[in-house]
C-alpha cells in the first residue's frame, strides 16, 4: 500500500500538469521526479502534452517559459528546489518583474531522507528566498493525500494565470512508509 503512494503522487502531479494543457514543459532532471518527467515525455509522445524539453539550467527555463505569455501562452517548469539558486535572477528580473505567469513544480532536497551532506545549504532557505522575492510558494508532503498534490498543482497553475506571476509548488517526497521515496 505505502509503496504505491509515491507513485500515486507522481501520477496525480502529472495528471494535473496535463490538465493545465501547457503550451510547453521545460525540465531539469531530478531522480525523485524522474517518473513525472518521463510521464510528461510519454504524454508528449501520445499527443497529450504539446512540447516537453530539457534545459541545461533552471535560469534558461525562466526565459523560455517566461516568454510564452507575450503570445498568450502558458508553460510549466519541472525542476528541483536547489536549482532556484541558479534561477533567481532570471525568475525575479524577468518573469516576476514583467508579470509573466508560469508554474514551477519542484521537488525539495536537503530535508528528511536526504543523502547529500550539503544540499540543504541551498534547499532549506528556498521557501524564504522565494517569498521574500514575492514569489508565491505552495507546499505538499507525505501528509497530503495524492489527490491533494494534484489539486495543488492544478490550482497553482490557475493562480499563476490569475495573478500574472510565477508561482511555485514545492513537493517533499520523503515518506517513512515508502523506502523507495527519494529525497
Amino acid at each position, binding site marked *: 500500500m505505502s509503496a504505491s503512494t509515491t507513485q500515486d503522487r507522481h501520477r496525480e502531479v502529472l495528471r494535473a500538469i496535463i490538465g493545465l494543457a501547457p503550451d510547453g514543459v521545460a525540465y531539469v532532471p531530478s531522480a525523485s521526479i524522474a517518473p513525472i518527467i518521463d510521464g510528461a515525455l510519454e504524454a508528449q509522445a501520445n499527443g497529450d502534452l504539446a512540447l516537453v*524539453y*530539457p*534545459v541545461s539550467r533552471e535560469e534558461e527555463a525562466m*526565459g*523560455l517559459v517566461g516568454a510564452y505569455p*507575450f503570445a498568450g501562452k502558458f508553460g510549466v517548469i519541472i525542476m528541483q528546489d536547489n536549482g532556484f539558486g541558479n534561477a533567481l*535572477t532570471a525568475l525575479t528580473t524577468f518573469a516576476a518583474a*514583467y508579470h509573466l505567469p508560469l508554474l514551477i513544480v519542484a521537488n525539495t532536497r536537503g530535508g528528511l531522507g536526504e543523502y547529500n551532506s550539503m544540499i540543504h545549504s541551498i534547499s532549506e532557505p528556498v521557501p524564504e528566498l522565494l517569498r521574500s522575492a514575492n514569489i508565491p510558494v505552495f507546499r505538499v508532503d507525505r501528509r497530503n493525500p495524492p489527490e491533494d498534490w494534484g489539486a495543488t498543482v492544478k490550482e497553482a497553475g490557475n493562480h499563476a494565470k490569475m495573478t500574472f506571476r510565477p508561482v511555485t509548488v514545492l513537493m517533499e517526497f520523503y515518506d517513512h512508509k515508502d523506502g523507495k521515496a527519494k529525497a
Partner: protein
Amino acid sequence: MKRIEALRAVVDATSDLPVIATCAATSRELASIEDRDNHLYLLDAMGLAVSVGTGLAQAIEGSAVLRAVVIEGDGSLLMNPGAALTAGYLRPENLVIVLLDNGVYASTASIPTHAQQLDLGRIAEAVDLKVLQVQNTEELALALRQTLSENGPWFIHARTEPGNEPGIELLLIDPVVHGDRFRRWLSQRLHA
C-alpha cells in the same frame, strides 16, 4: 562596424517582427534609434535574451508572425551559453539570433570576454545553428534578408567595435508597462 550601426541595420529589417534585445547598453542604443512597440528590452535578466527569443519562437510558431529576432551580445551569451545549446536542440526554424560580438563587456567598463580568444560562431555551428559571419552593415543587411526568407534557426555572428555610443539615455521604464506594450503589439499580429 559600431554596435549602433549594426542596430540600425536590425531596425531597418525588423519593422514588423518581434525583437528581443539584451540588457544595458544594447537595449538603450536600440531604443535611441527607434523605440518601437515591437521591441522587448530586457532591462536586467543577464544572459537571458536567447532563452526568451527561443521561447517566443516556440510561442509564435504557426502564427502570422514569421520570425522572433534576438539581439544578443558576446558577454551576455557567455553568461548563459546553454541557451544556444537549447536553441540548437529545439531547432525553431523561425528564430534569428544576431550576436553583436565586440569581445568585451561594453556595459561594464569594457572588460574583455572569452570571445577575444573563442569563436562563438564556431560554438553556434557545433550546436546546429545556421551561422552567417558578417563584418559590416552591408553584410549584416544581406544576412538579415536571408534569415527572414529562409528557415533557421539562424545565428548571425556580427563583429563590432568595442565601446558604447556616447550620450545615450538610460531606459527608465516600468517593465510591466513595457512588457504589456510588446504583448499588445504581438497579439494584434498573431492571428492577422
